């Protein structure tokens, strides 16, 4: 293993079945259903996936859902707004814990 991340590995995702076929089959079948057109459109789902990919900072997911969002007809503006949503939630998640910090400070302060 010369590197932790190789773009070619994305194409081998399906090979996780080699070590545990039954669970992989369930996962991929469920995964396919999740992204099918439903109450949310495929484009909306792809943009959510793109935002989550940035929140979890998964390079494979960013690769896959940048392409997929474009293929589903999303624009660059939509995609960057989705990344800002992820960033806002990440930033907000840190900041809202500031209240916890303040609570503790007030608890132990005179």
């Amino acid at each position, binding site marked *: 293993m010369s590197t932790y991340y190789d773009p070619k590995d994305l*194409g081998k995702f399906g090979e996780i079945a080699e070590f545990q076929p039954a669970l992989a089959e369930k996962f991929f079948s469920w995964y396919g259903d999740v992204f099918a*057109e439903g109450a949310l*459109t*495929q*484009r909306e789902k792809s943009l959510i996936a793109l935002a989550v990919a940035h929140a979890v900072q998964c390079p494979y997911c960013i690769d896959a859902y940048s*392409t997929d969002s*474009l*293929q*589903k*007809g999303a*624009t660059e503006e939509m995609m960057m707004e989705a990344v800002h949503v992820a960033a806002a939630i990440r930033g907000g998640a840190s900041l809202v814990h500031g209240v916890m910090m303040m609570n503790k400070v007030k608890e132990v302060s005179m």
Partner: protein
Amino acid sequence: MSQATTSLHRRGADLANAAFQLNVLHHGDSVENLPSFAEKLRPSGLMPLRPLSPEILQVNVGKMCNQACKHCHVDAGPDRTEIMTRETMQQCLDVLARTDIGTVDLTGGAPEMNPDFRWFVDEIHALGRKVMVRCNLTIIVSNPKYRDLPKFYAERGVHVVSSLPFYDAKHTDRQRGGGVFDDSMEAMRLLNAEGYGVGGSGLVLDLVYNPLGALLPGPQASLEKEFKRVLSDKHGVAFNSLICITNMPISRFLEYLIDSGNYGRYMETLVNAFNPAAAQNVMCRNTISVGWDGQLYDCDFNQMLELPVASSSKHISTFDVEKLNSRAIVIDQHCYGCTAGAGSSCGGQLT
């Protein structure tokens, strides 16, 4: 309007040569390891690929165009002078008169730039056949002499099929040239005013979407919804259906793929997305493509790669349905473009 590019032909580029393109398709960047299209088709029981009886005569009346789009598979542009003569058009009409081919699909270039275009449409119409025209929209507003085209089309019930790769100017102009989107909206308003794309008129205006890069087209129904919403809300224009077409790895789109470093990956994407159900319905099975010089091909893409029909009936002047029906369709690596994902044809998604 500014051109997005110039033709490969004009630039004297290697890729202007069909044999050079085929060589890239066989031996270009990392594609040698990809399975041949024939190999991929065989398990579906479709090899050799056989035609059904022809239902559509797709006639390329010339390579001249007022636009020069970055992805053009015809390498069309204002500098191209190859044009179909009235004599060749007459040979097409003779074939229609003695066969039951129901539809004539006129393409180019901008087909309207052929000086005999309107005569040809009238003659096909007189034979009672359906006429489709691949109209790039901007031609209608490019010169006062074309401004009455919507009326001309409406009077003959011509089915208008027009390219619009996106519902905004930024993306459309990137592929088709500066000002193309605004001109296209103006042309659509003129078509709508004649009843095109408007419910109940019976006049059909379809739009063609093709991806703006090394991407597969998305799901047709969902894209159509979005196009209709934005074009109606922001521009007050209407159309009937959105047709999704995959970009073929030939000509100017091939040039883009190579120059952007996407070629190998794009071919791999097409191969991985091979769909046997789409292969079953490919358009070459019910279409005969006629070149500007009357040569016969299995499709417009084979025409641009100079791969003629594998039949002794090779020219419109010697058109023989029986001979053509017994031919095997000529396939090569570019055919992966029509069988990827939901499939692609001049009529859109195949599955």
